């Protein structure tokens, strides 16, 4: 499959015009415990190209990068640098081979100057002490070489994050880098700042640096990248020339599975009739938050499931967080049963019977050192206040009821939460919210990273809850799942709500086209 997916064009390009790749990774496999994180993946990097590494969350992009930077040791496979086989047993070995990485979070020292940061660890010395003048001059030359107008003697922390990132890149390429890896460099940058970054990337490309670019923004990939390698579930899906691949094709490759098979998927779209006659239980009017998600409208009726589709980073989560007050909105207003409400904290939303289960189970859901029972009762107890503990009898009854109903294992209320598997933790978190008897349940990726059995149980639960009149906002990266469960569909892209339609005769490919098509429409209007 791997070989077949290579288009002839891509192969030609590799063979004829580029000669030996700077880096060639072949058949790389990495296993964590029983999980195969990478399975025979290959990657070819040529001098003077921007190579995008594409794939959904968990596809193996960061594992592959960490194999290349020596953070993880590979179990099998081969890495050659300019034709020479290399073993990257440590990050230092990788750096010595000319591979530099700039991570999403800038890891420089904010209270040193720009020059000090760039030369950290290899300061020019004179008589044993640091030659500040030479250091500033060298740093200035490097910055100028990249077309950057940054004062080397200024404090790094005084600059916006975008400039800090550029300094990090300048530092990285100054170490005679042959390969520069940029992991999500644009995630915290606005459009102008990203443009500046691309300018620097183009300059480096002209100088013959091979750049690995990881981004969730498809438009940016199409703007800057020459070729791309697509991963899915730890496997190589293919290598493509960006200019010869449409966005729709790319999205399909990333999400995977044959289109025909997808179309045939039986959908049990909830047979419930959403009651749209009354007032919506939750209504968002132009709410948005700067740097998070653009203003959007949304109406949610009793017994309705709204599915939110979109790629990772499209603003799905941000939308949910605004509805719940996990982040506060800058603009717009929110109405609960026609009454205007302002959620300044999750508490306000919970008081209005809204529940939100975060996608980040570990950081934003699980309280690992507490018991299963305490985790389940946390939200209810919080809303009662500490002075009114839940009576022991009620505690036992609720906890046992939900352990049974959701089939939580081990069925031990006193088990520590951190010892449960991901799927069972997820069920406990669902129970936490169901115990509060919400009218609106916002589920962000409730089935991510859990086994297929638990997944089916959770899907069934959502359908049942809606049938009983609960309104659900269901967010998932798996389009089939979203389509199977929702009455109405909202599509997000680039932190904007771009479409909303009833889920009738909508197929996965329709949604993909909406996601990809919007880009085309945008380009047309720009021209």
């Amino acid at each position: 499959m791997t070989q077949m997916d290579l288009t002839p064009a891509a192969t030609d390009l590799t063979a004829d015009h580029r000669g030996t790749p700077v880096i060639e990774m072949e058949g790389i496999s990495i296993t964590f415990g029983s999980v195969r994180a990478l399975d025979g993946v290959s990657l070819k990097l040529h001098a003077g190209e921007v190579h995008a590494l594409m794939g959904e969350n968990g596809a193996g992009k960061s594992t592959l990068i960490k194999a290349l930077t020596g953070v993880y040791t590979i179990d099998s496979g081969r890495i050659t640098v300019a034709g020479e086989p290399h073993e990257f047993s440590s990050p230092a070995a990788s750096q010595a081979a000319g591979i530099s990485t700039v991570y999403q979070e800038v890891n420089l020292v904010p209270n040193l100057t720009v020059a000090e940061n760039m030369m950290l660890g290899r300061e020019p010395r004179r008589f044993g002490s640091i030659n500040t003048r030479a250091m500033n001059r060298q740093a200035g030359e490097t910055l100028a070489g990249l077309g950057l107008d940054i004062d080397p003697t200024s404090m790094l922390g005084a600059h916006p994050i975008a400039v800090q990132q550029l300094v990090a890149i300048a530092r990285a390429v100054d170490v005679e880098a042959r390969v520069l890896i940029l992991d999500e460099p644009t995630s915290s940058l606005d459009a102008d700042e990203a443009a500046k970054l691309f300018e620097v990337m183009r300059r480096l490309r002209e100088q013959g640096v091979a750049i690995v670019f990881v981004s969730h923004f498809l438009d940016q990939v199409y703007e800057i990248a020459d070729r791309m390698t697509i991963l899915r579930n730890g496997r190589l899906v293919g290598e493509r020339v960006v200019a010869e691949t449409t966005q729709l094709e790319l999205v399909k490759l990333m999400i995977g599975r044959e289109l025909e098979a997808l179309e045939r998927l039986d959908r049990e779209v909830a047979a419930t009739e959403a009651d749209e006659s009354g007032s919506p239980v939750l209504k968002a009017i132009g709410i948005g938050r700067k740097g998070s998600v653009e203003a959007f409208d949304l109406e949610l009726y009793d017994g309705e499931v709204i599915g939110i589709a979109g790629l990772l980073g499209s603003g799905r989560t941000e939308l949910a967080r605004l509805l719940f007050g996990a982040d506060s909105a800058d603009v717009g207003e929110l109405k609960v049963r026609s009454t205007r409400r302002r959620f300044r904290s999750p508490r306000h939303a919970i008081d209005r019977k809204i529940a939100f289960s975060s996608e980040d189970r570990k950081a934003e859901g699980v309280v690992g050192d507490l018991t299963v029972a305490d985790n389940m009762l946390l939200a209810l107890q919080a809303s009662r206040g500490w002075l009114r503990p839940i009576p022991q009898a009620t505690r036992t009854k609720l906890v046992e009821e939900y352990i049974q109903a959701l089939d939580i294992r081990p069925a031990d209320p006193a088990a520590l939460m951190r010892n449960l598997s991901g799927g069972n933790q997820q069920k406990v978190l669902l129970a936490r919210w169901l115990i509060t008897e919400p009218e609106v349940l916002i589920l962000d990726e409730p089935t991510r990273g859990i086994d297929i059995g638990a997944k089916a149980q959770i899907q069934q639960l959502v359908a049942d809850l809606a049938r009983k009149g609960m309104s659900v906002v269901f967010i998932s990266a798996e389009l089939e799942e979203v389509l199977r469960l929702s009455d109405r569909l909202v599509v997000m892209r680039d932190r904007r709500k771009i479409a909303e339609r009833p889920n009738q005769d909508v197929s996965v490919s329709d949604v993909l086209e909406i996601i990809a098509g919007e880009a085309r429409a945008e380009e047309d209007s720009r021209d």
Partner: protein
Amino acid sequence: MTDRPTVAQRLLGSQLVWPVLALAMLLVVNVIATPTFFNIRMQDGHLYGPLVDIARNSAPILLVALGMTLVIATRGIDLSVGAIAAISGAVACTQIVDSSDQGAFATAIIACTTAVAVCALLGLWNGFLVSVLGIQPIIATLVLMVAGRGLAQLVTSGQITTVNNETFSNLASGFVLTLPIAIIGALAVFALAAALTRRTALGMLIEAVGINPEASRLAGVRSRTIIWTVYVFSGLCAGLAGLIIAANTNSVNANSLGLFIELDAILAVVIGGTSLAGGRFSLLGTLVGALFITTLARTIPNVGIPSEANYLFKALVVVVVCLLQSPAARHALRVRRPRAVVPVSVKAGPA
């Protein structure tokens, strides 16, 4: 899959085992050095003896440590307790000295109430800095740790204030129901704290905030109120401790009252098994920890070592406790034990 652990296993698994064993060991050392160590005699309806002394001496540390336990459970720390104790003593003594009837019962009560109220306010201040302004607890309470001594000096005008009030001095040396008042007072606060945290939901919410603040926020926990509450409680406890210390000498020296008591309290908390990283706490463990520290201070002169060496031994205890809490050291210990099978360490999963 889950075999029921035997009683021995459960006992060994309990966090209290090590502190209790350590305390027992100290007591044994004392009995060997002074065979009369466990003697308790009844005189005028009051109990006397080395053990009673230790219990009474531990009262201030226990009080401060109780407040500290809850603060630490929320991932915080309260460095200002010593200064608060000094302010408490200063306010109470100055009030008594300034009153028209120095020796009266009412005078002592009013003075102590005022002092404790002031301490509650100081706790409010700490809580405000930490929970509203979001200042790191160590810095926020450092402010009062430094400024508090100055405040106490202002209250006493820089003098060592000596008082003469029977009710007040009874706080440290009086007896009720054969036991020293200080012990009963500290145990009462212990019982109150235990009831407050374990009979209500406060304890669970404190632990939730300490273990995962963001998850707690999203679950609707009013973490601000909770954090505020624990700092006020810590202030109150420190205030009571200050009163007992001042009553013990019938005087207050703003410079030295409760000096370094925050370190003893933190040590007591850590010995008791509450992690400085926050989360699960054990008030009973803190009780044992406080007794351990006081016993240690008593043991050192008792076995013939100059009491100046006390700090050295405390430092040793700190080292041992840190080692016991360090995952690396625990792992090393486990490897040495021949029977235990160490699972092959698994590589970290993908980020």
